[in-house]
């Protein structure tokens, strides 16, 4: 079976794989970043980006150029690429793409609900939503008052519906509950995605599972870190951890008991993968945990391109592109706020 699927992989997905590899080659290089970091104004940045594969995507923007304009245009570009991939994909790759969009959909739903809680208008929030996670029913989420309401009324027909099994409750949606809902949704999403990749088998499973495991563990760490000093109980906290990562199950149990960063670090010390990451925190250049995780994510995503005949390249490409966009936005922010000392703490894609 293993050899076989490689034989006919290209029949269905060869074109897209070739395309995505070509797209990956257009990611900015180290030299590009160095040049970008030398820019004095956003106009300079625009001129330099024109020499890369971004082309003149900012050409039709009226002055003055702002960081948010750059960000929106870059997102639009990514979206165009993604929808092209998706529209040309066949099963089961299209399901894979749907899974990829789910995480953005969850974020958007949560963002809209938070907005509704703060009595902001839907239009205002919609602009901030990630275009990859956009769906029609999205705008109606503020009708719902409880998670089950949300499920029954709004999301039952969206791809997010299956992830609701764990979080049906009648609690009113206040800020804490929304955050709980997000994490629970994310947990079921990750587990479902993991299961999908596992069932698919072949190289896809071999490549995607480590990526998703890392994602799950990262969430576990971040949840723990964010829950310090909140009213979230330790039992509740444990229910939020995705149970697919390398930390599962002992690590998660230990994490649930952790009370400060040092204890968390001690948990991570048991794991060869995470120990160096935690050691790098605060080291040279005062990296945050988030930065370190991003760096590691970039590494494993780049590795995905070393294998042939699998879907992981699409996931990895989107993630790498996102990282690149974060980098450009970071550099642009530094330039526009005249905060040049930190301009070099972007995460280059190797």
């Amino acid at each position: 079976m293993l050899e076989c699927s490689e034989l006919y992989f290209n029949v269905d997905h060869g074109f897209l794989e070739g395309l995505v590899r070509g797209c990956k080659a257009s990611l900015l290089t180290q030299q590009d970043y160095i040049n970008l970091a030398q820019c004095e104004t956003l106009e300079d940045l625009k001129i330099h980006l024109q020499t890369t594969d971004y082309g003149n995507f900012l050409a039709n923007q009226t002055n003055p150029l702002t960081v948010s304009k750059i960000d929106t245009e870059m997102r639009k570009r990514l979206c165009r690429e993604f929808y092209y991939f998706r529209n040309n994909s066949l099963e089961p790759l299209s399901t894979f793409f749907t899974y990829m969009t789910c995480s953005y959909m969850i974020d958007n739903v949560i963002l809209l609900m938070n907005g509704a809680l703060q009595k902001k208008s839907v239009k205002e929030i919609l602009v901030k939503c990630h275009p990859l996670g956009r769906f029609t029913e999205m705008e109606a989420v503020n009708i719902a008052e409880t998670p089950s309401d949300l499920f029954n009324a709004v999301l039952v027909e969206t791809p997010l519906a299956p992830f609701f099994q764990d979080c049906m409750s009648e609690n009113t949606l206040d800020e804490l509950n929304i955050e709980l809902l997000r994490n629970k949704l994310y947990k079921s999403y990750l587990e479902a995605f993991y299961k999908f990749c596992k069932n698919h088998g072949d190289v896809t499973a071999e490549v995607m599972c480590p990526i998703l495991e890392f994602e799950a563990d990262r969430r576990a760490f971040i949840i723990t870190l964010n829950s310090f000093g909140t009213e979230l109980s330790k039992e509740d906290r444990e229910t939020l951890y995705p149970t697919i990562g390398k930390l599962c199950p002992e690590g998660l149990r230990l994490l649930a008991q952790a009370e400060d960063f040092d204890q968390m670090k001690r948990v991570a010390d048991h794991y060869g993968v995470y120990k160096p990451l935690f050691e790098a925190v605060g080291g040279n250049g005062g990296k945050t945990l988030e930065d370190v995780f991003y760096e590691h994510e970039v590494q494993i995503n780049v590795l995905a391109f070393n294998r042939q005949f699998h879907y992981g390249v699409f996931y990895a490409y989107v993630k790498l592109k996102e990282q690149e966009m974060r980098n450009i936005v970071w550099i642009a922010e530094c330039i526009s706020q005249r905060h040049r000392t930190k301009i070099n703490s972007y995460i280059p894609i190797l």
Partner: protein
Amino acid sequence: MGSLFRSETMCLAQLFLQSGTAYECLSALGERGLVQFRDLNQNVSSFQRKFVGEVKRCEELERILVYLVQEINRADIPLPEGETSPPAPPLKQVLEMQEQLQKLEVELREVTKNKEKLRKNLLELIEYTHMLRVTKTFVKRNVEFEPTYEEFPPLENDSLLDYSCMQRLGAKLGFVSGLIHQGKVEAFEKMLWRVCKGYTIVTYAELDESLEDPETGEVIKWYVFLISFWGEQIGHKVKKICDCYHCHVYPYPHTAEEREEIQEGLNTRIQDLYTVLHKTEDYLRQVLCKAAESVYTRVVQVKKMKAIYHMLNMCSIDVTNKCLIAEVWCPEADLHELRRALEEGSRESGATIPSFMNIIPTKETPPTLIRTNKFTEGFQNIVDAYGVGSYREVNPALFTIITFPFLFAVMFGDFGHGFVMFLFALLLVLNENHPRLNQSQEIMRMFFHGRYILLLMGLFSVYTGLIYNDCFSKSVNLFGSGWNVSAMFSSSHAPAEHKKMVLWNDSTVRHSRVLQLDPSVPGVFRGPYPLGIDPIWNLATNRLTFLNSFKMKMSVILGIIHMTFGVILGIFNHLHFRKKFNIYLVSIPELLFMLCIFGYLIFMIVYKWLAFSAETSRVAPSILIEFINMFLFPASEVYGLYTGQEHVQRVLLVVTALSVPVLFLGKPLFLLWLHNGRSCFGVSRSGYTLVRKDSEEEVSLLGNQDIEEGHNQMEDGCREMTCEEFNFGEILMTQVIHSIEYCLGCISNTASYLRLWALSLAHAQLSDVLWAMLMRVGLRVDTTYGVLLLLPVIALFAVLTVFILLIMEGLSAFLHAIRLHWVEFQNKFYVGAGTKFVPFSFSLLSSKFSKDDSVA
């Protein structure tokens, strides 16, 4: 044709452009397209260069122009294209132009925004009227068909009663009505059901006409819906859901009078809006029409301006900041033109100090410029596809003009096919000014660009076809065959002669299937056919054997001549680059090697043709055996061609064997000797005389360097080499590799020329098969029905001839001819390591409006 033999001499010039006049000077240069700029700021990134602000301004102008063009196209106003391309705008006008354009853009944006707003308003009102019209029928239907439905009473009848009834129930009846996209109806209804748990009633109907969406401007089908609900809470939810699905919600009139009133009000407002909208559109059109007149000029001007600033960014700035220094490559022939352009630029800007130029000596290799015309362009392209020639190297394109079509024709030798190809090419050449040909599709364009090649290929094919005596695989008997069959009969000869010869009588003719003509019988062979192959061979069964022998020998002869010519061209290169020793140590040994083996082979072929006649053909030796024996020295010495053959062959072999070590070691050892000793008086004196002959710039260079280097420079010609260290091992390796390649190449390349034979054979056989399979079948049918059959057969024959024999076979012969030129011919002398001269010329700028202008 002199310009085609070698590329033009180039010189490096420094332009001192006064900062005030730089722009005008470059504008004048760009119009002429004389020079290629060198980037003097290579290590400066693109946004740190001097004129980046100006480039940005040009980009801003371009953006506005793109917007303008887009608007003009949307309004369906034709864009006039100027005949001549306007010059780059003077600097004084640029600001004015920018202001104008910006003002125009602001105005346009304003007007379009207003227009869009009005239009949106109008569309909404139209939607509203449609909604009112359709919802009226909903209510009516309720009256007619559901008179017993109490919870949703017909409002027109007695609303008062119902309201009281509702208040009694503690709830209020509410309505939401509007329009929704066709595709969203189902999901919308489902969500309403799920959220409101059935406390709503939805009625909807499809709108019979498609309306434009006020937001996106798409024309789509719409559904009109009416939701009636109970209670405030649900009302909120319904409204939110409507928002979510981007429904266009309009207030619902509760009574018939209200409805009438709204309807009337709407109608008048729609009328008003129509008039206002028309006026706005008229105004917009007027503005756009005015803009359209100048937009072509503006686009070209901005493009030129941007190009000028890009070039200025390549210049370095003088210390005093007063002038820009540009370095350019310029053909020497165009120097006075360049001076005039600079003068003109200075005059235009009215500067007091003129810009001037200065020729500077350089060690760098200049770019290669070979001026072509429409005829030579195609052939030059064939050569350039292999590699752009090194500076001042012999350009094989000149010879390719004849050899390429000729070698092609050898493989494609058919009178008829060649004539068809010639006609096709002639058609293209005669109509070359036709605009549709210029803008044709990819394949057609390929033919079009190669039309002169095709023309010559066709002509030469006609010629070789005549030689092969092949016309659609049939021979043409123009002059009468030289063979006489009747002479073979015994009755036509005196009985005394019968004994010596094998003659025919009635029984032999009747009983044998194959008869042989014997040329030694007097009267049978009356001398050669005046041009090409005798048509009688077309009937012979041993035709193929005869032709194969002929074509094989011909290919070898042609190939060796072609290659020898290549080696001789190498001598011209060495002469020009003043490397005389290369002639003695490389070219002459190469020539000897080639001629002593393969030249002698040719000699043997020709000698055998001349020396042996039909009578003596029985004793004629095989050339193959003779050639092999030349190397093997067999014990039993049977040399059959001529007396003294053995000694001649020995001498030739010795010369060949001697030339090999010279080829291998001569040049490296000579260079080593030059490097170490240079003790020989004669050589160094000849060096000086050569130096004196050298151009001025080299003399000025010599002043800076010691004589030693000057000598080397003279040796190498290529000036970059002077700086390189003398590395004997490297030179030896290069020379050894080159020699091995050459010696083996002589054999393999000669064999490679046999493709001439193979392809011409294949072509002849293919056309023969096509004739036999199709035409002969068609011609054999008897006369009554034959005509009916012959027509489709001829059609099929023509189609297959064109597609298989002309296009497919032609393509294959074309590729093989290219290969023979690139590999077998050009590797004897052509380095092809140059870079093309790309002048800064406005005519190379692509203009969106006039694509064909850019070709000029």
